């Protein structure tokens, strides 16, 4: 048993080394901009860059719209499937898993081919339309995560009783979903939302191929042209991902653990 513990520590230490060294190296590199001494010049340069502000803001706005679209799409569907059409559940689950089967690059390739200026749905004819298509593309990418989060949340509440109680009190479907179901699965929805945010904020492939001024293509561009700023940006990106995951972790503490009536 003692030997066991020794090897466990060795394995763990090797793992730590592999995961910590790149972060340390990146941080160290990001401080090296000024010759001969450590400084935060690279961060100053990045944070003072108007392109950084513009692209980051653009990606934040796209992320917010993606989350809204995702919630609008997933919450009513997952609720309805649980309440009325449990037989369709495998079909819906299969569809929500498709974005894991079809790589993002293939999805966006399909968009470029299908929604060109001469098509019936000419999303790509205008900049606004392309923005909308990017939001839609991101919503598909986030679909597996959003659906799982919401479905897990729904499992912990008694959907049928809540619905019937609301109906007896005279609530319509919109009221039920917006004022009864959504607040009850809010924590699950927020978990999905922050995961979506983490995925979308630095996404490169779709934004780049749709030619949108997003944060991901900006990162790539800086990487190709600057020496120290990329490291600073990597550290900032890691901090953003870390923040999103921490929020999810904190939220999960507030989530109800067991179902009132196991479905």
């Amino acid at each position, binding site marked *: *048993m003692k030997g*066991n*513990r020794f*090897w*466990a*520590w060795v*394995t*763990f230490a090797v*793992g730590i080394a*592999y*995961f910590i060294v*790149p*972060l340390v*190296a*990146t941080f160290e*590199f*990001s401080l090296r901009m000024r010759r001969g001494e450590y400084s935060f010049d690279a961060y100053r340069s990045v944070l003072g860059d108007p392109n950084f502000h513009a692209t980051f803001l653009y990606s934040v706005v796209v992320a917010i719209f993606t989350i809204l679209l995702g919630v609008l*799409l997933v919450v*009513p*569907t997952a609720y309805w499937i649980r309440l*009325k*059409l*449990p037989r369709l559940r495998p079909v*819906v689950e299969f569809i929500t*898993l*498709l*974005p*894991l*089967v*079809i*790589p993002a*690059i*293939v*999805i*966006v*390739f*399909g968009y470029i*081919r*299908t929604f060109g200026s001469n098509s019936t749905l000419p999303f790509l004819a205008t900049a606004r339309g392309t923005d909308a298509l990017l939001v*839609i*593309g991101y919503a*598909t990418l986030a679909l597996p995560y959003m659906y799982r989060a919401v479905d897990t949340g729904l499992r912990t509440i008694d959907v049928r009783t809540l619905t019937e109680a609301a109906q007896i009190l005279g609530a319509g479907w919109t009221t039920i979903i917006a004022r009864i179901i959504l607040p009850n699965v809010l924590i699950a929805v927020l978990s999905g939302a922050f*995961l979506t945010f983490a*995925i979308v904020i630095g*996404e*490169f*492939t779709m934004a780049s*191929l749709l030619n949108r001024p997003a944060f*991901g293509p900006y*990162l*790539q561009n800086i990487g190709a042209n600057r020496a120290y700023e990329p490291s600073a*940006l*990597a550290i900032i990106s890691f901090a953003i*991902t*870390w923040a*999103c*995951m921490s929020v*999810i*972790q904190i939220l999960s503490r507030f989530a109800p653990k067991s179902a009132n009536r196991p*479905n």
Partner: protein
Amino acid sequence: MANATLTETAAARPGAPERSRMRLPLNWLGVVPFFLFALVFLILPTFGLVAGAFRNAAGEYTLDNIFALSQPKLAAAYWVSIRISLVSAMLGALVGLAIAVAVIRGGLPSWLRSATLTFSGVASNFAGVPLAFSFIATLGRLGLVTILLRDLFGINIYALGFNIFSFWGLTLTYLYFQIPLMIVIITPAIDGLKKEWGEAAATLGATQAQYWRMVVIPVLWPSFLGTVILLFANAFGAVATAYALTGPSLNIVPIQLFAQIRGDVLYNPNLGYALALGMIVITGLANVFYLWLQRRSERWLK
């Protein structure tokens, strides 16, 4: 749950046949937006590509594009992609499993377990362009590790043939999200190994090695294999990390497809569709295997 609902509906039917017939279409209405979205923005665009792969420039049906995938450059791209994905998936799965077992079963302090899981959640989502930057700062020509190895130990890894912009460089970078993903996915499976099994094996006189060989490995095997396949698909579709790390120079399928979408470098749009079809077929097959194995492994996790 499904059965209960079915019997309820069946019981209600004789009493009110008209009502249930009237309500059926309304029930379907609730999922129409979702299915419409999936159809228009997921299935039709992809289907369009697949259909395009079987046509030539004049719109006639042909298999030429599929055969053209065997031209040396594209075949090599598929081969390199498959190798990178497979190697990073298998190494990631083995190392991830070792770390997960060490943290959960190795008698390490329990706070390490939650710290590891939290970090894994972060690192498995830390992919793409910033990850490439990190590895350039670590193992690039001027990276910290490269310089330390050279100055402290006199080992010049670039003189020894290592290059961050190469097969092993990319594999090493991919492991940064592959290993944590393995840890996140396999932890519930390891938790599912019941203590009673170990005690039962010990009571029957099994050694630790026998317990592992005859209980643990057979139970974990489907989850393990399933996750390897998931990691494979994960690496196979990744574009951003590879593009930011190596630029358009490395010949792997996602990079080829990226260049083709940007500027029709193959001079044949339909061949581009075939390239995409090849990616779907490979990740699709991987996921079919994954789902099948997952179903097998779920038996033990109840």
